[in-house]
């Protein structure tokens, strides 16, 4: 599998040039540090250096109780904070055998999908900005802001909500939630076509993305890509479809698959997912059953000895939470299988032999969130 040529040594005196992109760079979306070797404009090799925002959340969680550790995961992939918290709550519930009330399940799924829309909106803006168009970023933030306001109303925070708790959700929905969410959906339906007009259909944008950052289906699997990155290459890997959790089994939605495997395919997958998420929310929003929003749980959670793995589909792919419990009040070991980490490992493979401008566009379509990679 491994080719000799994969490790290229820069030879002094040749045309090759080593450039540091990041940690302080406009297009790395955080503090990612890429050491790239270029020959003229052609990228020969990309070498990520991580750790600029590593907080060792896994180690921290070992000293936090099962209720406490969930909040730390909001700080991993801060754009899908809800979904990260959800994964942790699922893992604890699985370990404890807690039955989540149906109302809480509905609320969780609606929140997850709202988070996904917010995250994809931000991605849409930033991928356009990576390609050089600044205006879409502001339009995307308009929609994202509406979601954040809805979140703030119900969860009490805009970004790091800590809304999911083992056994359900922390508060009941705000009385205005359904009205606001529906208003948002109506607004977003009218605006998403504008996204297509402004960016998707744009010939410059299409030319920038088509045929760049190609990754084949087999490579995508081998590199452990998940989420829209893998689905752009035709890998069917939607956790919501294959390993349904909460009420995903009862809602109708399509797993978006594109087979081209290039940046444009990944772009299309994410854009189509926005519409799918909208339809999921529309199906659920009017049918949220009455009842408890939180199951009765003990004050101190002590899962039995064993290993528990839960997974959810975040906006970037499959997030796995692997808990090793020794029967105590704190986890013995926690591993977060973050989607961004695996997706990033494929970056080098994707951009070899492409232009410097492509590197930025490919990074945009991978939708990297650095705290998610560094954890």
């Amino acid at each position: 599998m491994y080719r000799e040529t994969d490790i290229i040594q820069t030879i002094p005196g040749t045309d090759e040039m080593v450039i540091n992109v990041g940690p302080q760079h406009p297009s790395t979306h955080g503090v990612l540090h890429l050491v790239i070797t270029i020959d003229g404009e052609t990228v020969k090799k990309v070498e990520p250096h991580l750790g600029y925002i590593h907080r060792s959340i896994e180690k921290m969680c070992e000293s936090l109780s099962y209720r406490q550790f969930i909040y730390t995961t909001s700080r991993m992939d801060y754009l899908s904070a809800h979904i990260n918290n959800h994964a942790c709550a699922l893992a604890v519930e699985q370990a404890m055998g807690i039955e989540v009330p149906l109302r809480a399940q509905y609320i969780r799924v609606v929140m997850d999908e709202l988070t996904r829309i917010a995250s994809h909106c931000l991605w849409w803006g930033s991928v356009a900005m990576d390609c050089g168009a600044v205006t879409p970023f502001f339009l995307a933030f308009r929609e994202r802001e509406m979601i954040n306001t809805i979140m703030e109303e119900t969860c009490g925070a805009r970004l790091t909500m800590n809304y999911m708790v083992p056994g359900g959700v922390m508060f009941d929905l705000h009385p205005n939630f359904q009205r606001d969410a529906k208003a948002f959906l109506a607004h977003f339906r009218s605006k998403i076509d504008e996204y297509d007009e402004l960016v998707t259909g744009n010939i410059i944008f299409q030319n920038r993305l088509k045929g760049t950052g190609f990754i084949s289906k087999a490579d995508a699997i081998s590199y452990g890509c998940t989420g829209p990155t893998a689905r752009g290459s035709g890998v069917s890997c939607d956790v919501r479809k294959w390993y349904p959790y909460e009420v995903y089994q009862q809602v109708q939605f399509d797993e978006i698959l594109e087979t081209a495997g290039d940046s444009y395919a990944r772009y299309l997958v994410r854009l189509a997912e926005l519409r799918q998420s909208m339809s999921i929310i529309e199906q659920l929003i009017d049918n949220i059953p009455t009842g408890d929003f939180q199951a009765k749980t003990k004050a101190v959670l002590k899962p039995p000895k064993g290993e528990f793995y839960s997974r959810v589909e975040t906006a970037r792919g499959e997030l796995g939470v692997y808990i090793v419990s020794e029967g105590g009040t704190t986890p013995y070991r926690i591993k977060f299988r973050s989607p961004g980490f695996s997706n990033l490992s494929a970056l080098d493979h994707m951009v070899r032999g492409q232009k410097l401008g492509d590197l930025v566009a490919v990074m945009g379509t991978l939708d990297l969130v650095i705290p998610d990679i560094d954890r």
Partner: protein
Amino acid sequence: MSFETLANWVHNWLYETLHPTVALLVEFAIVGVLIIGLFAVLGLVLVMMERKVSSWMQLRLGPNRIGPWGWFQTVADTLKLIVKEGMTPNNVDKLLFNMAPMLVIVVSMVIMAPIMFAKGIQIWDINIGVLFVAAVSSLSIIGVLMAGWASNNKYSLLGAMRSGAQIVSYELSAGLSILVIVVLTGSLKMSDIVMAQADGWWLFKGHVPAIIAFVIFIIAATAETNRAPFDLAEAESELTAGFHTEYSGMKFALFFLAEYVNIFVVCAIGATLFLGGWMPFHIGNWEGFNHVMDYIPSSVWFFGKTFLLIFVIMWFRWTFPRLRIDQLLSLEWKYLLPISMFNILLVTIIALAGWHF
């Protein structure tokens, strides 16, 4: 009293009272001061306009703290840039590093010479006006290359090299689309070109070739001034700031100013060639309408047209993504250049057959 009479009056008065050489020097000084004033005002106004256009397209308010509606924001920025330290990093080629912004600013100022700002207001009605503009404008690339090479920075070098490939390419189609008007007019002189449009602008009476040439000229002008979607030399998301990464303080401000003045210049040329310069807008035999139009001062017409084109170029910038370097060159060599070559043939036929109005 028109500007022309005023200028003549000053001219005569100077020559009557002073020794001819001194009078000439005084005249130069007056022109220099006027142009510097124009230069500074243009920079301030254009930067402000860019900010307002971008913010309005992005549903923001834009600068609104300093002065009414934030109109003095750019003045404050200029003050800030003056107070900032102009850094010279280690290992730079000091001579080239300091010369580059000077060269860029000299080029963008010299290029103003043949522009007709209003009826009778022109620094030098050079008889090869258009050729002069085409020739001098390509000098600014040397400044960019100097800046990129001297900076001892990889981003700068990459940006400068990109800019080199880009500007030389787009010069061709810009030149060819200018030629369309030269063929129609039969003169390289700016005043002749404007006068030829007294009965209608070339854009309207030049048939299809003039429209094609106009579109190509706008594209090429955007590319030559390194504006998005052709801003590969700066390419913020790829090269952070491209060729002026290492520049700060006033030296950066000079690059910045030169960029905006260049935009003004190319748009002024576009307005002169295609939109009739200072000529008012006339419609056929509508005497009353034409009469009203004539009352609007010629300088207003000229600046109005120029700023319209500037707005279009800003509109491009805030709408389109950036091209990739190979796409940029294939656009020029595979689309714009062949089309403008055919366009020249087309216009020759039209001019010779006398089909234009």
